[in-house]
């Protein structure tokens, strides 16, 4: 009996009972969080991320303003209780600042920053639970929060992690799988199929890369469907709520008459 966990058993199941290409359960919550301009919570299985977007607004520090476009500022905070062993990371942690700069460079070409000169868009990422696919959850959640904040985007950005176990590719890895097998995170824009981010921290055989890459693109389209339907649902709910007050939309003269009665 090997001490290691079996990534893919003979029946074709993974350690958490999924098939090779099966994604984890995705839930999306787009409701208002605090006084953020836009916010979203996404869960991929046991990974949960909350993103709040503020702006476009005046930059806190004047030297950060760019005269012809908006400056994007990403701050990531990983909750101490998000992993198995409790660990407090400092703000200056190298891993965290790398994650923040990856998110920033993923979204810089996607957000239409030139519409908002001299302003700043703040993206605050809060990692609540992590079980693999941290970057993918951060990117997906940021897309949703930006869309929710009414910030113009070229397209949704959908990210997914893919890995390979001996010769068989698997999608949407958990921590267990990420620790064991080589993996790659791909972020793509579904309309054009353009890729905004490919990142890999482990070594992967060159022959295997293409297969995983294509699978990840397909998986991105599936995630896009989920994200789009969530955004649509939210927009629909807000439009309906605004319409419900339309009985009073008249105002003007009718309002004045009512006021006279008092």
């Amino acid at each position, binding site marked *: 009996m090997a001490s290691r966990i079996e990534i893919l058993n003979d029946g074709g199941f993974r350690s958490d009972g999924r098939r090779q290409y099966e994604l984890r359960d995705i839930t999306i919550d787009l409701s208002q969080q605090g006084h953020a301009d836009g916010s979203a919570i996404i869960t991929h299985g046991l990974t949960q991320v909350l993103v709040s977007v503020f702006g476009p607004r*005046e930059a806190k520090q004047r030297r950060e303003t760019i005269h012809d476009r908006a400056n994007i500022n990403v701050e990531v905070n990983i909750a101490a209780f998000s992993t198995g062993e409790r660990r407090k990371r400092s703000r200056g942690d190298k891993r965290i600042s790398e994650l923040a700069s990856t998110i920033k460079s993923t979204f810089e070409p996607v957000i239409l920053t030139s519409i908002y000169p001299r302003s700043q868009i703040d993206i605050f990422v809060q990692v609540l639970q992590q079980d693999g696919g941290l970057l993918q959850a951060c990117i997906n959640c940021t897309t949703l929060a930006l869309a929710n*904040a009414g910030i*113009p985007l070229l397209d949704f950005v959908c990210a997914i992690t893919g890995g390979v176990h001996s010769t068989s590719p698997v999608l949407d890895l958990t921590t267990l799988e990420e620790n064991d097998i080589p993996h790659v995170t791909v972020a793509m824009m579904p309309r054009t199929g353009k890729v905004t981010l490919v990142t890999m921290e482990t070594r992967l055989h060159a022959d295997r890369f293409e297969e995983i890459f294509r699978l990840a693109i397909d998986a991105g389209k599936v995630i896009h469907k989920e994200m789009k339907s969530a*955004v649509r649902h939210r927009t629909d709910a807000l439009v309906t709520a605004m319409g419900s007050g339309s009985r009073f939309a008249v*105002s*003007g003269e009718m309002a*004045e008459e009512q006021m006279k009665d008092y």
Partner: protein
Amino acid sequence: MIAFVSFPVPSVNTEAYAVARHHLDVEEDALMDLDDEVEASGSNLKLTCPGESLTSAQAFMRGHGTYVDNEEVISSLAGTVERVNKLVTVKAIRTRYNPEVGDLVVGRITEVQPRRWKVDANSRQDAVLMLSSVNLPGGVQRRKLESDELQMRNFFEEGDLLVAEVQAFFSDGAMSLHTRSLKYGKLRNGQLVTIPPILVRRLKSHFISLPCGVDLILGLNGYIWVSKHVKESEQEGEEGFDAEAVYSNRNDEIDSATRIAISRVTNIIRVLAAHFVPLTDVLLLESYEWAIEQEGEPMDLLHDDVGEALVHAITRG
């Protein structure tokens, strides 16, 4: 008495029931059917998401919230599609305030700079209030002196709230404000509520006085000032322009009944905003009457069930 239900009653509102999962190829068709249904049901509001193709760029012009790629007009926002002749625009539901000349806004001073103040008005950049566009004590037609520049903090300080009008725009899109009217100026005797700007509709007058002794200033930027009612006879006339009163930092005496009325109105606005109901004067009046009928404390309005009952009562009623 105990009742047994073999299955949970399917709620119509749950998302899980509304969204059926299909295979990728099948889902395309399913979504298309949904769109047809929406249009058939008579709702003329077309919703869209970022990256969704709207029309061809040859036949239509691109407006706000869209971009052109590969001869197609594509939406860049999540919101409603509007079309005026050949111009296609997308209006986001939740967004920051988009200023227009002549809008009434409520803002907060963030910075005092040479001959100007910077004002936070919920827009994408801080607004500018020039020293030359405020009324100074000692007559409206008075010239600006160097001494005025040196004592700018006597007029407005960091953190002060003010009501102003959008006068013009700078080349980078920042707005310039003015307070050259006796209606505008520093705010006191009340409190501020912030709501999404889209919920403030353009009205004939944005200065509303409710019969409960509360004055409201509905800033189009989503900042709302709720304050004690000031009798019109007591408002300073053109002649008796009183610097003491206009730039005073001291609140008047406010009795407890007025204080309660102010917080009740504030909480009503908060509840309506949380349910995304657009504000109008009539709606506020009805809500206030409803709140009085319930005989609760102003604080009770913030409970979820009371808030829901309020929204239900005034939108269906």
